[in-house]
């Protein structure tokens, strides 16, 4: 079995399995904890709507509370850029179609190149901020830096494929770097891709009950 076959076959299956089982375990670790009954008289009863609203409302900067503006703009940029690169690039859609049978229209390559450039620059700025900002330096640990590394790696190995035509070994390295990300995702902060819904929903529902602001 060549490296590419390995990356496309057992390595991909293993990494997806770790991703799914790992995330399920992480969520189980939360939901197995006891929930305390709340006997207070609710101000509002539409708590589920509050939870859903918080999931979307928290995508925007909070009203009246100053946030780290440049870092928030940067975070929007690399999250959107990353989503475009992963889900709107023709070769990635072809790969997803081969694996799952699902397909959709790709964006022009030029758009994806810009998105990739924005994402790489954005992530680099985020790393520099983490290293230079006293608050972020204090809060940061192995998870923050390793998560950054496994996010950046598939971008770099993917960019290395662009001059084309792609060598199988280079494609394999790119795939393996993606698989490293999938394997790490449930164990570190990248799990916020799933936890963001749980956390925002929790606060949105609890606070809606009180009629309080989120």
């Amino acid at each position, binding site marked *: 079995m060549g490296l590419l076959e390995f990356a496309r076959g057992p390595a991909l299956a293993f990494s997806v399995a770790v991703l799914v089982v790992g995330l399920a375990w992480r969520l189980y670790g939360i939901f197995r904890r006891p929930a305390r009954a709340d006997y207070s008289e609710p101000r509002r009863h539409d708590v589920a709507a509050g939870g859903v609203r918080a999931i979307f409302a928290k995508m925007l900067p909070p009203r009246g509370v100053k946030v780290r503006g440049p870092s928030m703009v940067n975070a929007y940029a690399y999250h959107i850029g990353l989503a475009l690169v992963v889900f709107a690039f023709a070769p990635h859609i072809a790969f997803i179609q081969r694996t799952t049978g699902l397909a959709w229209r790709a964006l022009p390559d030029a758009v994806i190149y810009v998105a990739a450039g924005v994402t790489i620059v954005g992530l680099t700025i985020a790393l520099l901020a983490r290293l230079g900002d006293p608050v972020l330096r*204090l809060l940061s640990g192995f998870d923050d830096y390793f998560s950054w590394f496994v996010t950046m790696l598939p971008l770099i190995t993917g960019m290395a494929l662009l001059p084309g035509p792609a060598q199988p070994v280079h494609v394999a390295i790119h795939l393996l770097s993606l698989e490293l990300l999938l394997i790490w995702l449930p164990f570190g902060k990248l799990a916020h891709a799933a936890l963001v819904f749980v956390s925002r929903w929790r606060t949105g529902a*609890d*606070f809606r009950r009180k009629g309080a602001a*989120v």
Partner: protein
Amino acid sequence: MNELDFDSPRFTIKKPAVRHDKQGDASDAERGAAALQAFMKDMTRSAATYMESCIRCGHCAEACHFYVTSGDPQFTPIWKLEPFRQAWKREAGPLSFLYKTFERRKPVDAEQLRQWQELLYDSCTMCGRCTLACPMGIDIAGLVAQARHGMFAAGLVPHELWAVAERAEREGSPLGATPRVLKERIEWLSDEHEVDIALDRPQADVLVTLSSIELMKYPKSLVALARILNRLGVSWTFRSDGYEATNFGLFSGNLDWQRDMSLRIVNAAIASGAKTLVLPECGHAYGALRWQGANMYGKPLPFRVLHISEFLAEAVRDGRLALKPMRESITFHDPCQVSRRGGATGAPREVLAALGAELREMPPAGDANWCCGGGGGVVTLHRADEHRHRAFEIKMRQVETTRAERLATSCSNCRLTFDDGQAHYKWDQKMESLLEVVAEQLTD
């Protein structure tokens, strides 16, 4: 030994000559174990969600008055929870087996908790502004309250806060407002202001409560309350077996004391057959009774719980309270636990609208308002004065921006903090009580 100080603008115990910021004589190992046990009891599904969700973005720092005015990264709200998070990650989290195997996290120890005492008590008012800023929606303020349970269990509560909490548990009031003092003061206020202040009526539709800050420092609030209630013609009373709404059990982190303090009022309300319990102008009293009281009682409360601003808003909404129009402009300081965290942001504004006041909102106001810096028990701590006064500079700027002629709030603890800030900075603004403003405007 911990004498109360009623001579300074801020009421607390006198500055201790020697601080005792730890209680009992347990060993460090015992303190660490006790804290860990308490932390584990609080690791509910909500806490677990939040512990797993932080992305270490630091946005909460910009929302915290203690960080913003000091620039000290230690005051980043989520950092204040580090021992709690550490306990979760190592002892109960879904990946705890990895943390234990690789010793990535130390068990919670007393030395670390001693360092964190300043972060969990002196530099956090549990105002919840950080929760607004958090992109993951983590309720940091709620978690700080839980982390304080571990601090109390470890016997590591700041001197003043422990002293007033213990006094509240023993005497029924943190500021010496015992039932005897209550009775004397009510008699004096009734005579002095020629107003009927109901005390210990066996049955009443409305049980009213007070903050001992009001009784000892702002007694005209009680007169104002009595005038309004008498004008409304409701059947009401104070009760000497359940009048103190402040809850230093909650602040200090002792759940048993918090429960005792809440149940005194709950039982008094039940004994008087009250349909409505009215909480005083006190922010945390609202959180303690309105949102946590039933949970302390263990079942739904058989009466409504309203903050006084909600009670007044209801009265003006129903057309039962006729008020003379105010001619001045006014700005309103939102008590965090009533507005942002309590959901009653609209009530004082309804009252101010009924007064016809020109309301000049602070930038920002309402849910995003800055805390006065004295909540969460911080105003009691002498050693936190420097942090608190620095944080108060934000409030002064906010108020001055409005150029309003008058300044009001509906929390006596905020009022106390403003009085102290005013004295410290020789500031020319005077905080008033919304309740007293309303009483002034009662029609003749």
